[in-house]
């Protein structure tokens, strides 16, 4: 766990939840772009955007975590992450800040919400608990 503690995280809001992504996995954070939807794609695939000449697929993190979509607001951001040698965009409601955690707990299991494995661990800062996302699981699952 010691390596996890030294790392920096991007903290973001999805619905009522706050979660974090390891900063190493984040390529950049951009404002909402116009998305071209793709017919016959999975529901969580929102479409593709033009990221400076590159076509990048964007996904709804809300959908990926089992929440329904909400209209985009001025705070909506696309977090572009590196995943298996390509870029994938994750739509989040809000990006809070870059942070570190004093203590990281192993992820809790067996809550029966069908979301086991999506967290690398639970970061704790003072009395706040934040789930650290395991991209491999979320995007590859």
């Amino acid at each position: 766990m010691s390596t996890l503690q030294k790392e920096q995280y991007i903290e973001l809001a999805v619905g009522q939840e706050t979660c974090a992504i390891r900063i190493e996995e984040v390529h950049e954070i951009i404002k909402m772009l116009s998305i071209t939807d793709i017919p016959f794609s999975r529901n969580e695939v929102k479409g593709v955007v033009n990221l400076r000449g590159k076509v990048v697929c964007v996904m709804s993190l809300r959908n990926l975590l089992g929440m329904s979509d909400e209209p985009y607001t001025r705070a909506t951001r696309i977090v572009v992450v590196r995943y298996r040698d390509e870029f994938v965009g994750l739509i989040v409601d809000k990006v809070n800040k870059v942070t570190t955690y004093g203590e990281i707990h192993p992820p809790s299991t067996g809550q029966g919400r069908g979301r086991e494995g999506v967290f690398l661990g639970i970061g704790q800062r003072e009395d706040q608990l934040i789930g650290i996302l395991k991209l491999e699981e979320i995007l590859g699952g």
Partner: protein
Amino acid sequence: MMMELSAYRDIFIEELNDQLERMDQSLLALEQSPSSELIQTIFRAAHTIKGSSSTMGFKEMSDLTHEVEYILEWVREKKPKITSMLIDTLFRALDAMKLLRTEYISGSEYTNCSSVVSEIKALLGKPAGPERNTLPALNAAETLLAEAAVGAGEQLIAVSITLKEDCLMKAARHFILLQRIEAVCGTVISVSLFPAVTQGADEDERYGQFTVVAAATKELQVIQDQLGDDSDIQRLHIAPYKIKFSKEAERMIDTPEVSAQQANPKAEERGKGTPTVRVNVERLDHLMNLVGELLIQQTSLADLSTAGQRSDPARVLPDIGSVSDHMGSIIKELQEGVMKTRMLPIDQLFSRFPRLVRDLAQKLDKDIELLIQGGETELDRMIIEELSDPLIHLIRNSADHGIESPAVRVSGGKPAKGRITLTSFHEENHVVIRLEDDGQGIDAGRIKASALGKGIITEEQAGYLTAQEAVHLIFEPGFSTASAVSEVSGRGVGMDIVRSQIGRLNGIIDIGTEPGKGTVFTIRLPLTLAIIKGLLVKVAGRVLILPMYNVAEIVRIVPEEIQVVQGEQAIINHGRIVPLSWLRDKLHYPRGERNTKTIPLVIVRSVDKIAAFAVDEIIGNQEVVIKSLGAYLGTLNHLSGATILGNGRVALILDAAYLVSH
């Protein structure tokens, strides 16, 4: 050392490919008309490969080429008659070299080439000598045995025995000798027979010459004495045998190398994956000049911008316009130039086929010649690679189903030798590839009956199918007329795959056939896949792109023109019934209000199918750069990619083949 060499790996592989190709071609030519120049060419190629592979530490290859070089030298000096057996042996050696190359590239275990080597030896009539590289190699299991023996302090020996010519029942003799060797020396690790010296010889003859690798505890001389008194042995040779360690053992010995490789796994991967292109220096210089011109134009643009800030901006506008025009033309030329660097002559592909046809003719017991025309036609390298499989399939079909056996041909008044002609040429913005055979042609009636029998078409459909349409049924999945499945073709999975592969390249395939005279397949392909001309259409507020190659026509109709045939919408276009669908529904976009009186239709053609699609608006055509949608989205059959429009938005490029067939 390893690290340094890995930098040359790509170059080595490329050179290897070139030389192997050259050998292949020269061998084919040699078979047609023997000449000492050709032998010299093959010899030089083998020599180059031997040299470079030993530099790269690719011992398996250099050993094999050494043998090939040996036989070529013999041919060059002794000038024997070039028999088909000699050619076959050389081809087999070449195949073994190709196999080694593939294994080298993929980094897998090397195949044992000793059978080819001994075949060469047999041809030369050279007995298995004491040289180390003529001794049989051991397979994995045998190597383990040998390693164990060495570990136990035993000595490995190779016993080469040639039985007397007049020795009867050589096979039995062989086994008796094996038992003796086992008794005299110790564990027999491997036994390799030499193949029959002359083809068609008695099976028994194969046991006339063999080499045994055994683990021995005694001195060589003692063994020599104990075995040498056998009256049936003509020649006995015993030598110490050195094993090549198995990969595991090698790794244990050679740890520094391993760590170097582990430290740099990325470099290894890169070595495997990146294809390279050779570009004419003249073409590169031309590109460089264009870039230079662009820079000059950019400077004048910057000057104009400063001038505009100082004085009235309106006065510099005309100048900016002309600079923009000039830049536009440079960019266009640059685009063409860059495109040309991706182009390769189609000969790169065609040159593989003479060998294919030769092997097919041999296997099918037919006499077939392949004529190639227009090999210099240039095509995008990616298309060339993708074309290989479909063309191989078509050639196989022509050889198997098209060309008749010599007897049938002669009785039909044709020359005994069948002919397959492969032609390529440019036509407008396309490359046309034509594969023509002078075989029996395709019988539309038989195709119809077979399709009916397989349930591909109904009785009713069979009634109104024209001969031409019936012939196209061979492209339907699950269709194969060959009554028996042959080794060469006829598994019923071929032609539909050919069609879909051509379709994926935005190409079109057509068949022309005349019973008794022959069949022509015509494939029409775009020059490149990187940039295409696309038709931009608007559907449900979205801009979509259809490749122009697939757009047969754009028409406007009034709703009254839509007919309903068998419950499906259709229109009459040039006298034929064309199925009609709404692109909006097809792509599951939300339905919207439509207030125009006429409906714009795009008639899309892919391979041999045609369909009309109603859109909301036709925007126009433009050149679009195809961008990949990336691997994350997985396979999307309905899309062939995406592009970025002038306004920065991404527009999807529809796959015509999918549209017309779903």
